[in-house]
């Protein structure tokens, strides 16, 4: 019984990882194509659908962690996926004025490169039982550059969206009401920017620690 379960788990995870991999590959290809043909302002329109699909699929990863299907701690995956979903849906989708900014290109390329490497890494592990050492190296090294570029793009886009958020009153719930409750999306977005201050070093040092562990295992092997 246990043997069947772990095989099913492996097949499922292999399919999941390769499917999301192909989504991100599409994003990268369309982005580069748009950059070549039209320039940065056109990137978003060309990648919107695969981007939304691939990024939103990552919610499954939180569930995988919660039910113990994978070992990644929820404390590391939740902030990363949270910020991605916020930028994808809460900023780019909700405020079209941001879509033509050049930071969208750097965002999309940073995200898609990182994810292509990551999902193929896990996809190979599940499907073939091992990963080639060059892929392991890529997975634990490209973040050194792509985390800063990705985070800068995310923070930058949230920041330039702020005036549009304030003016639009979107997602806001106002007083007076009998539950004396309010929600201001503008302040919430500023709050999210605040979270990046401790959050970014936390994620970066976490990955540095993971890199050390992974690469030393490689040496030992």
């Amino acid at each position, binding site marked *: 019984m246990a043997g069947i379960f772990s095989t099913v788990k492996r097949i499922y995870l292999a399919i999941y990882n390769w499917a999301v991999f192909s989504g991100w590959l599409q994003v990268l290809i369309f982005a580069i194509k748009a950059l070549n043909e039209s320039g940065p302002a056109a990137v978003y329109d060309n990648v919107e659908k695969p981007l939304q699909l691939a990024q939103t699929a990552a919610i499954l990863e939180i569930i995988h962690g919660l039910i113990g299907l994978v070992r990644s701690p929820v404390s590391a995956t939740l902030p990363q996926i949270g910020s991605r979903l916020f930028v994808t849906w809460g900023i780019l989708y909700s405020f079209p004025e941001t879509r033509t900014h050049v930071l969208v290109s750097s965002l999309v390329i940073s995200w898609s490169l990182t994810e292509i490497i990551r999902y193929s890494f896990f996809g190979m592990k599940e499907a073939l039982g091992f990963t080639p050492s060059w892929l392991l190296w890529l997975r634990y090294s490209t973040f050194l550059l792509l985390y800063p570029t990705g985070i800068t793009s995310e923070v930058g886009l949230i920041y330039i969206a702020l005036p549009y958020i304030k003016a639009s009153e979107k997602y806001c719930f106002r*007083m007076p*009401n*009998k*539950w*004396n*409750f309010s929600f201001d999306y503008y302040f919430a977005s500023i709050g999210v920017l605040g979270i990046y201050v401790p959050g970014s070093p936390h994620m970066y040092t976490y990955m540095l620690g993971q890199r050390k562990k992974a690469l030393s295992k490689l040496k030992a092997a």
Partner: protein
Amino acid sequence: MKVTLVSRSGREVVKGGIELEDSATVKDLQEAIHARTKKYYPSRQRLTLPAKPGVSARPVVLNPKSKVLDFCEKGNSDNLTVLFKDLGPQVLYSTLFFFEYLGPLVIYPLFYYLPLYKYFGYADTDRTIHPVQTYAMYYWCLHYSKRILETFFVHRFSHATSPLSNVFRNCLYYWTFGAYIAYYVNHPLYTPVSEIQWKIGFAFGLLCQVSNFYCHIILRSLRSPSGNGGYQIPKGFLFNIVTCANYTTEIYQWLGFNIATQTVAGYVFLVVATSIMTNWAMGKNRRLRKLFDGKEGRPKYPRRWVILPPFF
């Protein structure tokens, strides 16, 4: 006798070890360590016996009151190896509590008295202060003043100190929630509930605060002034039916405040505080039941509600 002090990584913390009289207590050892290492004052030291290979039991902590000799292995009373861990800079629990509670005590009246709402975009909103908002401010300040007074005059702490990092974490929690709730209850667009509702809310809350105070007095009498820190079965008043009656009364006290003031912010705080206290209560209940298992002449811990009748 000689004590060899090692860190978890095997490094000798004090070169050459520490020479002690055979009659020395662990407290003497701690002071000797402090004298040799300067920065590790006693409350920062965590001293345990090294784990025996293959044994996965919880490490034996060296109690300051015990004699060092008690921890030596039979037949080897000249040498002892002790594991050292630095707990980091420590503050007194009373210091920690004072700063946690000072924040809400000061921040809340700021929202009541000062024209802060113009910075949130409400410059031209007229503000009529409803009676319930005034009573809420008195109630809140009474609550946190009570907490500060209890910290200095009532509570007996099981550990004298807490890590410094807890000051930042706890202050963040209390001060942020304090500001969050104060913002809504004192808001110029605040909608009060009916008079009968807030009167009942505050009356119930006050009753619970008084009960809570009495619970703290009872808990104080369970601990001897010399701070032995030993556990006893709490009894008397509500403790006869609830293990953590002090938490129960605290939770219901906040419920009273929320019934009176009705804000989502207040209820969010109630839920978070309740879950934290419930966690503590389950741990305490587990410890008490383990300690008072009815064996070897020890009394058996009676069946009681843990924290929140009628739920558990």
